[in-house]
Structures are given as C-alpha cells and as structure tokens.
C-alpha cells in the first residue's frame, strides 16, 4: 500500500548543507514504493542559496519556508482578532511562567498536591494556547506582527509578575522580556505557514518529522487541523541542545524559553503516534519529557556497511601489535589519556605501536593535536631495530588519504585492536565502523558506546588510562579472543546499524501508523452532499481490498464534515499535481 508521507525537516534535507540530509536521502530513496512530500524549513539565507540535493522521483513536491526571516504579511488585526490573540498569548505566557509544578518549585514552596494532575492541566493549557494561536494565524493571518507587538510583551510581563510565577521569571526585566518575545516569535513562525490546508499537509497520510522541536511543529498542527498522524524521529534531543546552546542567556530568558521548549516537546510526544529515538540516550530524554514508553521504538541510524565489507570479510591482515585510533582530533576525544595508556601498554608489550588516524578540527583541535604530538614525543623516544637502522616513533599521527591509510577501511584494517578513548561521545560512529570491519575494540564508557557495542568489545571507564591499557594488553595477547569479539561485533553491526535495517524499520513503522490511524475522508456525491457508507469499514484495513476507488461520481474530500465539504473536493486516490515540485 503506497503511503503518502509528509517529510518535515528543519534546516535539513533537501538542502545541500542540511542536518541529517544523508539519512533522509537514503530513507526517501530506499522507500521508492511510497510517495514523499517534503516540507522544509530553512535555517539561514546561506543555506537556502546553496540549493538542494538531487531528489528522487518519489518526491512529488517540495515546499519550503524560511525560518530566518519573518514574512510580515502586512495584516493588521482587527479588534476581535487582537483580543483573541491576547487571550491565547496570555495563556501561553502564564503556562511558561507557571513552572511545571513538580520539579522547579518544590524546592521553594514545598511539595505540591497532585503534581501529575497539575502537569496534565498545564500541558492542556499550553496546547490550547498553541492551537489557539495557530487557528488565529489560519483565520486572520498577521501573527508575526502580533507576536512582536507591545501587547505580547505586556502579556509576558504580566505573566512574570503574577503570583505563583517562577522565581527566575519574576526577575525578568525589559530586555529579557523582549528577548523571550522575539524568540517565541521565531519559534512560532511555522504557525503562520499555509501548509495545513487540504491540498498540502492535510492531504498526506502521515507526517514524519525528522527532528523534534520546530521541525515537528507543522506536524503537530497538521494533526490538529486535519487529523494526520505524526511520527517523530529524533537523533539528538532538541531540548537538550537548547539547554546547551542557551547557556549564556540571562536566567529569566533561560527559564522561560526552557519551559517553552520542554512544553513543546511534551506536546509533540503526547500527540505523536510513534516516536523513534536514534539511541537510548535520546530515548531517556524523551521519556523524561513525558513520552509514553509504549509509543517509543528505537531505530538505530543506518550506516554504509559495504565499504567495510572487504575488510570485514577477509582474514586479519593487520600488523601485529598495532593499536589504531580513528576519529576527529579534539579535546573531547581525550588522546592524552590514550597516550598515557599506551605508555603502560609499552611496558607490557614493547613491540606495540599506536596509530592515531584523523584530522584536527578547528583551531582548538589543532592546538590539541600539537599538544598530543609533543606528549607522544616526550613519552616515547624514537627507537630503531638495531644500531644501523633509522629510528621511528611507536606513535604515529596520520590522516585519511595519506600513504599509510588511503581509505577509512584501510585504516581500520591496519589495527589489531581499535581503541576509543573519548570522554564525551554521542553516537560513536567510529566504533560502529570498527565493528563493521570486524575488529576487536576497547572503548570508554561514554555516550551510547555500551549500547552500540553490547558485549562485543571491551568497555572501560573514561579517564582511566590504566584500565584502558590493561584491556588493550589482554586483547593484544589473546588473538583468539580478538577474533571472536571481532566476528561478534561485525555480526552485531550488520544486524543493527545498516542502512537496510534503518529503512526497513521505518517502512514497518509507516505501515503500522497508517493501519492504526486511517485518514477518514468524506465521499461526496454529484451534488456535493456527503455520501453515507461510501467508504466501507474494510477500506481502512491495510492493503487494497477493492481496487482503486476511482468511480466517476465519487468525489472525496478530507475529513471534516459538511463545513469543509463545501470547498473544492479533491480525489483521495489520485496524487495531486506536483505544482511546487521543482527538481
């Protein structure tokens, strides 16, 4: 059954410089049997001017909107619309200033009664305010002007000064109020888009948001206006990114915006049909933000396995006693610790060598690389085999593409043991690559490492050179164990981290969602009246039952009853002309 998917992105696919564009591209190309409509929000003028990736034919339309510039439609609200806006915005501001009733204020005011009920109430109020603003934008337009107006700032000020407001919010001054209002205006820009009509997101079977936060907001509204189910995929938690990025802002701004983003995340998780985090770390954050456990399906990111196939399949041809570290050189990778560990290894295994493969990123990375080189030179003097040979340092710094390591796969192939020494790590791509290559690994217990390696490699605590050294020595001395672990790692990676796995998982999830939430469409007769029983109950069963319903008299409009039925009807079974598609 072909499913029509509205793919929602923010600063991502189909832009050349977008985030996660590779994953989206593979997903769209891999699911050729479905139809994709892409709704992309661009993040900067530069991104927009850099253009799009080449799109496959299953993309039937692309609609874009800039997030970086507010399109002032010149609409000035009338008295009634202004009052409506004021009510919604005041409600929104009140919710943001109220705190979540359980975490923030307990320290000050003591435990609140019934925190669960209170937080559900707050969530409802937030949702009402959000959808109220969206409806206003849809009916009247002019939301951008209103969100920047003095009325909005005054509403924020009143909410901050109200009794029971957050302690930090109470301290908000005028500049902070203005910052919050500006940020809210920016965050709520998707509300002013014209994407929620029956000829746009209203006509898709399923919205797939490729990130949380702003990207999922159109999906939330499509669900509200047209009942389209929403699937949210998150490879990094937007809320967490927001917290880290806004660390320099004044406390009041952080408190209010943090409240906004966590409420928005909670609303997205509450309304989403399914949520697919990319790893268990993301999953924990989602659960923490109120996502229902039953709706969460972890879908690991897929990676290109074929380029490591050769290395992974063939026998170990690595140089004996060679440790390889591959990655981008930066302080979070803690190469210092690795060098100290290697010093310990050399005491046990004097022939051991360490190859550090990777390039430094940025000025900081360069400085760090220089520091590491100096330390390596200090710890390990050049040494030669005999009195007549030229000496060499057991630690070498190389880059991919150099004579020693022409490709990434070759770099991994050269290692007896692959080492990962990071202190901070998200999803360890390097580790997955090493697993694809069938290499035994020793990694530090950070980020998603344990989840990825799952017992097919050694894991040691971070910042512990001695533990790292002992783990490496034990592997260097035990070829059988190395082989066993490497084979297991490769099998595990092929099972969990391939592109095919990722695409198949999403295919299944699409079908699952569509089967659970069929779009109810009203079938109209010639006179434009609803035709009762025109769509039998079997029609909602997944798969085609009665062949295409393209009777000459049956016209179909999206669900919504007689009010919408008066509008221009669309056929549900034939695809709409791709007016916006510009490939």
């Amino acid at each position, binding site marked *: 059954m072909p499913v029509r998917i509205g793919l929602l992105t923010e600063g991502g696919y189909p832009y050349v410089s977008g985030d996660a564009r590779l994953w989206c591209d593979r997903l769209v190309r891999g699911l050729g049997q479905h139809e994709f409509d892409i709704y992309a929000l661009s993040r900067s003028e530069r991104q927009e001017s850099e253009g799009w990736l080449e799109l496959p034919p299953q993309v039937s339309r692309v609609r874009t909107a800039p997030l970086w*510039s507010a399109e002032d439609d010149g609409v000035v609200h009338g008295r009634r619309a202004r009052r409506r806006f004021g009510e919604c915005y005041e409600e929104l501001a009140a919710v943001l200033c109220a705190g979540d009733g359980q975490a923030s204020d307990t320290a000050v005011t003591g435990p609140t009664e019934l925190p669960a009920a209170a937080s559900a109430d707050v969530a409802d109020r937030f949702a009402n305010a959000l959808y109220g603003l969206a409806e206003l934008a849809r009916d009247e337009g002019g939301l951008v002007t209103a969100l*920047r107006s003095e009325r909005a700032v005054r509403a924020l000020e009143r909410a901050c000064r109200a009794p029971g407001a957050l302690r930090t919010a109470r301290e908000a001054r005028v500049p902070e109020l203005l910052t919050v*209002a500006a940020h809210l205006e920016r965050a709520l820009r998707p509300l002013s888009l014209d994407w929620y009509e029956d000829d746009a997101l209203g006509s898709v079977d399923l919205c797939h948001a490729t990130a949380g936060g702003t990207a999922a907001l159109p999906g939330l509204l499509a669900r509200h206006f047209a009942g389209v189910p929403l699937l949210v995929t998150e490879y990094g938690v937007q809320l*967490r990114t927001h917290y880290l990025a806004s660390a320099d802002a004044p406390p009041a701004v952080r408190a209010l915006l943090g409240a906004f983003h966590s409420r928005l995340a909670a609303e997205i998780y509450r309304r989403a049909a399914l949520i697919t985090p990319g790893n268990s770390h993301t999953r924990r954050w989602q659960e923490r933000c109120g996502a229902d456990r039953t709706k969460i399906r972890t879908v690991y990111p897929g990676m290109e396995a074929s380029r490591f196939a050769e290395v992974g399949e063939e026998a170990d041809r690595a140089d004996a006693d060679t440790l390889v570290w591959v990655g981008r050189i930066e302080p979070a990778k803690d190469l210092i610790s690795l060098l100290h560990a290697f010093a310990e290894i050399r005491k046990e295994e004097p022939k051991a060598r360490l190859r550090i493969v990777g390039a430094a990123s940025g000025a900081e990375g360069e400085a760090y690389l220089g520091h590491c080189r100096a*330390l390596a030179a200090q710890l390990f003097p050049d040494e030669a085999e005999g009195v007549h040979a030229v000496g060499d340092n057991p630690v070498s710094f190389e880059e991919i593409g150099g004579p020693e390591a022409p490709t990434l796969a070759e770099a991994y192939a050269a290692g007896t043991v692959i080492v990962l020494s990071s202190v901070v790590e998200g999803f360890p791509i390097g580790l997955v690559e090493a697993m694809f290559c069938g290499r035994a690994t020793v990694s530090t217990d*950070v*980020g998603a490492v344990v989840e990825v390696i799952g017992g097919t490699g050694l894991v040691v*605590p971070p910042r*512990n050179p001695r533990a790292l050294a002992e783990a490496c020595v034990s592997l260097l001395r035990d070829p059988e164990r190395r082989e066993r672990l490497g084979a297991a790692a490769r099998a595990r990676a092929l099972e969990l981290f391939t592109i095919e796995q990722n695409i198949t998982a999403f295919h299944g999830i699409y079908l699952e969602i569509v089967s659970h939430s069929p779009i109810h469409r009203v079938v109209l007769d010639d006179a434009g009246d609803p035709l009762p029983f025109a769509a039998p109950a079997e029609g909602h069963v997944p798969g085609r039952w009665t062949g295409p319903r393209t009777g000459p008299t049956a016209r179909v409009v999206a669900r919504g009853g007689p009010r919408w039925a008066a509008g221009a009807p669309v056929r549900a079974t034939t695809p709409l002309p791709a007016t916006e598609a510009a490939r």
Partner: protein
Amino acid sequence: MSGLGELDRPGRPGGAGAWDAQSEEWLGGRGESETEGEAPGEPGTPTLARPLGGEELDDLGVPGEQGPARDVPGGVGVRDLSEGDSGERNPKQPLTPRTTPDQTPRKPAPTRRGAADPVKALMHRHRELCERAVDPLEIAAGLEAHGVTDRTAARFRHRDVFSLAEEMYARVPRDDAATPHPDAAAAQPPRAGWAVLALLPGVLCAATVTGLRLTDGRLRLTVAVVGVLAVALGVRLALGRGPLSTPPGTHAWRTPPGTRLWTYWLLAYALLGDGLLRAADDGGPDGLPTGATGGPWSPATAPVLALTLACAPAAWCAHHFAVRARRKLATSRGLEDFADSVQPLLLGTFALFLCALTALLALCGAVLGEPAAYAQALTLGALLLLARLLTVHGFTHAPTLALGAAAATEATALCLDFIGRLPGCGFLATPVETLMDSWGPGSIPALACGVAALILLFHTTRTLTRASAHAPADEPR
C-alpha cells in the same frame, strides 16, 4: 554526532576555590577526585592535592577503576558497583561503608562527615553549572556534556543522570537576593562613517546654492538640475547608513514609496511654494523661477539649505535617542517604568533638534541674505524628523499618512488659489487668500506641517515609548 562537544567541553573548573565556607571546610578533608574533573596527565588542582593517607579514605570507592574490564556477554565490560567484589581491588583502597546519598547538606558537619558526600564533590566541580541552572534538566544536559552517564550517576547512588541533576539542583544554595544583572551592553564604538555621510546633503546643497549664485543663464539651469540630483542622492546616502537607516533585512520596515514621494513634494514646496503663491498673488507666474533672489518667483534656498544641513543634527539626535533608550531598556524594571523614562528623553531629543534647526536657519538666512522662514522650516523639519524616527523603528504607516496629509493640504491650497482665478470660483480661494493676507504665504505650509507634526508627535510619544519599538535587531540570517 558529538557535535555538542564544541558547546561544552570537558574541563576543570576555572578555579579551585570553594564556593562557601562549608565547601571550603569540606574541601580540606577531601581526597583526590576520581570520576572526572581533571584531565589525566595534568596535576590536580592545588587545593585538591592532599596526600591520600591511610585514614582519609576515598568514599567514592569507584570500582572498575582498577583491573581490566571483562567482556560480559550481553552486558557491559564495566564492572558493577557491588562493593563485595574486592577480588581485584587495589589494596590501598579498603572497603568503605556505603554512605547514604541524601544527607542534609546545610548541617554543619565535621570534616570527615562532609567527605562522605560524593554529590557535593560533583557539585563543587560543576558549581558554575549548578548555580546558573534554572531547571534540573539544564544541569542534566550540562553534566552529560561533561561525560557523566547513567553509570557515573550510579556511583552517586542515583538511578540516572536526571535524578542526580535533581538532587544537585535542589541542593544548590540559592540566595533570594536578585542576581546582579549585567550592565547595559557596552556602548558601540562610534563610527565616523555615518557622521560624515550625514553632513553630505548639507555640503552638496551649500555647493549647489553657491553655484547658483555664481552662474546664470543656461549654466545655472544645469547647475540647478545637477545640484538637485546630487542633493537627493546625498540624502539617500545619509539615510542609508547610521542611526537614520532602517534596520537591514526587514522587508516591512523599508521606507514605503509613499513616504519618499511626499517628502520630496514637501521639500519642493518649501523651495518653490511660497514664491509661487506670492507670484500668483501678483497675477503670475509669468515664467519658471530663475533662481535670482529678487525675481518674481524666487526660490527659498535658505530654509532648504538649513534643512539639508540639519541632516547631521537629526542623525545625531536619532543616535542619541537610540543609545539612551537602549540604556534605559537595560536598566528599567518594567514596561511602564521604561515608558515613563523614555518619554522625557524623546521630547528632549526633539527639542534639541528644533534648537539646532533654528540655529541653522538663522545662520543660513544671515549668510544667504534671505528671510529664514522659521515657521515653515521648523514645522517641516519637525515633521520630517518624527516621520523618520518612526520609520526607523518600524512604524511606517503613520508617517506616510501624516506626510501625505501635509502634502495634500499644501497641494489643495495651491490648486484652490489657482482655481479661484476662474470666473465664478473666487469663493474657493477665500480661505487661502485670508491666510495669505493675515500671515503671509508661509502660513500655509506652516499650518499644514505644524498640524501634521503635532499629531505625529502625539503618536510618537505613544509608540516610541514602547519597549517593543526598541527591541534589538533580528538575529543574523
């Protein structure tokens, strides 16, 4: 995917000092920190460096620290926290009693007791993060960026990072005194660019007037045309940068064409209108203005020269107003407070500009030997300044209306005066004639611009005192 590392990298705290007396006291009895906080290979911070004697045990007792990790099938190579697993335990680290996680931190405890509080060590290490946080999730995000995982949290007897962050958030000493707000944003270094540009229209206009005085005939016509074009260009340049320019990148905030058109019309009237009316009064005009001062339709160059010269004080006033308003924005507590403090500032700036314009008018009149036409020029200058201020702050509707109304009034007066010559239509010209008879031809633009300026001034005191009008410019694109 670890791009967040750039935002918040692991590292040691900036200083090793304690954050309060308790912390200091506790620091004294603390051994070496274990889980993280100091980069390996670097010496510990001096305060922390304390010999690890036999008695000063490390209560963290982090297992898994020593000995190789094991590959547990389906599990993790990290060793679990069971304290009984002392097979590979470092002999220097004897078994330590399990400590309760939630001791009351405020209780003045003896040193040994304080040392049994591992969360406090963590809080000390991340004290900036803790003091800054407005939300437990913020601490959780910050801790994770420093490499704290759920397994690290388990060493602090917590289920996950979130509950650890919650404890830390709850335990941070908070004084309810208002946190010091950062001072107003440092004043931007004055840029000479716009100051020079603001002088450009006046200089060009002065040059043109001089040229007109020195030439005659066809050459004078050429000079006049070139001069007008040059002055128009100069004004555009002067308004394109500096405090009189509209913020970049905002479509809606561009000067609407209507405003521009009415402004040109008003200036043209200031130059030629009075002369035309005077000529019409005498039965003329019999030809185009020649530019000579004593002619029948003499252009009023002194007010126009003064107005173009006034671009510089206008730019300075706008700059002054913007800077002071921003400063007030940073210091005022509420919106009402801000409005109350900006209103006198706005009126003062406006009065200052009027003074400067009066002085310029007097100067130009004296130099050129012409009547200075104070009433017309002052009202027009006031109107133009207010219109520009509003446009710069994003209010384009009202200036267009006000300028349009003033221009339309002037045009109507001219038309009525000429229509009144037609037979039977004499009554139409009566109001204009009355005005001219009692106060002279200058009363018409003075009235039109004056009323418009007054209305606009009232509007300005209501709109430009709003904080939203002074919101900082948009984020970069």
